């Protein structure tokens, strides 16, 4: 297990390096001059030249790249073009909101999605199964941000149970609706995968053997079916965290949450390149981290994975 973990951990380094390189390259082909963004269209050529020199924009491409990489390694994401404040603290302040949404959304997704998938698979071709499948199919067709809008209409505007805007609050009252809007969509995805994964395992010989030797149904389901169905379920949970992060950008806009998504969208509107670049690195880093955790979980669930 240790060597598997170390190997997998080491793989994070080239992946992150490639991700950072792609973001750096994409940001360099962006139209517009950062110096003009900072000083405005009416700035004199001399002022622009001086700022370009200060920001290192006239340096050779490779030098800019290594300066940026060196900065990242020391936690320096550069300075915002709009407010001239370091990017890292701005992202760090926003991170808890997005992380809360992501963790909450995944929890809701797992707690609702797995039981829904299990029930649907065990009651295959019954009314319950049909109902669960329609619910899941409807769920994956809903954009999370639209669900958020509907939840606001019902629970904030009509029933007055929750505030419309979550803003900079990190409590359950403010975050319940955004978490639900992300989590319910997650639940639909997880339920679909759980159902098909369990149906697949239910057909296996070892399940038939377990049943024929007289084991109670609960033991067969928990010890034989569930454990063997977990790998695809964990995969889809990991994959849907990526989708959830994308959804969080929109959900934060809907609920006006001061998270990473709002920072990123705000930076895009203002063409604040260092902030866009930093936001993208953190988003992609988050997904790389989730993929790492998913892979390490495989090792725990299925010992065979460690020897591949």
């Amino acid at each position, binding site marked *: 297990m240790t060597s598997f973990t170390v190997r997998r951990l080491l793989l994070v380094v080239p*992946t992150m390096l*490639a*991700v950072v390189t*792609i*973001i750096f390259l*994409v940001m360099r*082909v*962006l*139209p517009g001059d950062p110096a003009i963004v900072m000083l405005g269209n009416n700035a004199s050529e001399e002022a622009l030249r001086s700022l370009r020199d200060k920001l290192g924009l006239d340096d050779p491409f490779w030098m800019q790249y290594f300066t940026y990489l060196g900065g990242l390694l020391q936690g320096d994401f550069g300075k915002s073009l709009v407010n001239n404040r370091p990017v890292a603290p701005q992202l760090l302040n926003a991170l808890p909101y997005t992380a809360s949404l992501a963790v909450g959304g995944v929890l809701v997704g797992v707690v609702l999605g797995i039981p829904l998938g299990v029930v649907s698979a065990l009651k*295959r*071709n019954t009314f319950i199964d049909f109902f669960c499948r329609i619910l899941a*199919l*409807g769920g*994956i*067709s*809903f*954009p999370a*941000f*639209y669900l958020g*809008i*509907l939840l*606001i*209409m019902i629970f904030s*505007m009509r029933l007055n149970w929750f505030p*419309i805007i979550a803003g900079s609050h990190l409590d359950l009252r403010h975050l319940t609706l955004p978490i639900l809007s992300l989590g319910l969509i997650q639940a639909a995805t997880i339920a679909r995968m759980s*159902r*098909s994964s369990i*149906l697949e395992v239910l057909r296996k010989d070892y399940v038939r053997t377990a049943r024929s030797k007289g084991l109670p149904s609960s033991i067969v389901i928990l010890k034989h079916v569930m454990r063997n169905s977990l790998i695809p379920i964990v995969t889809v949970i990991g994959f849907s965290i*990526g*989708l959830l*992060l*994308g*959804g969080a*950008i*929109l959900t934060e*806009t*809907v609920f006006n949450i001061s998270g990473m998504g709002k920072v*990123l*969208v705000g930076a*895009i*509107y203002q063409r604040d390149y260092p902030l*866009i670049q930093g936001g*993208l690195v953190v*988003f*992609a880093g988050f*997904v*790389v981290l989730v*993929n790492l955790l998913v892979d390490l979980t495989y090792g725990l669930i299925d010992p065979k994975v460690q020897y591949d």
Partner: protein
Amino acid sequence: MDVKRLFKDKIALTGGVLLLAILIVALFAPLLSPHPPSRQNVIDQLEGPSSTYLLGTDQYGRDVLSRLLWASRPSLFIGVSSILLALLGGLILGMTAGYYGGAVDHLLMRFADIVMSFPSLVLGLMIAVVLGGGMVNTTIAISITFVPRFARLVRGSTVSVREEYYIEAERAIGSSSLRIFSRHLLPNIIGPIVVMSTLWVGQAIRVEAGLSFLGLGVQPPTPSWGTMLKAGMDNFLRASHLATYPGLCIVAVVLAFNLLGDGLRDRLDPTLRGD
């Protein structure tokens, strides 16, 4: 694929009928719209449903129903064309990686994995920032986010058939790679890929709606469900109906593609039937 059997599949049939209805609406939007979609009427702004404006008006006094009908066009256009573009890119990359194997395969698939480590919307945002908004640029941005997924799928299917006797026979008689790709590989791998394409069109439409909602997709005055949803949200307290209808349209079209894709998948793989 047996079309008659497909019609017997209630899920696929429901999806197909729903999609056909949406396509008809998109096609005949100019005839079906009671008002020109961009005609502003400040006196009638933010009105509720009435006999003149069946679904009410927006903040500029434009007819919501007419705009909804016209907005089906960019959504369907971007959803379908971005997936077709991605399919083309994915076929080229995936077949090359799967057929030649070795370093080419390793390099292309690692690149695909890295690109896939960006959530679709984040990657779409990144590319939309570079290219700018508009229908064509949004189509390109979304298609780029789907290319790695297609490449992975195509590569997997290619690897499973590249050692078949009929491919080996073609190689033995000296057929060119292009001929092997187009005459033998493609027809044998395309089935599951078409099915996934159907499911992914729904996802592409969701990404488009998200980008337009953020103001980075379809640009006004072209009506789009995403921008209409954003306008509805901005006028939430005064006219909540504005946000309800465009969202329902997005759900309906995505659901149609998902139902059709699910049905097609079940037909293609009988072991999944009813799964």
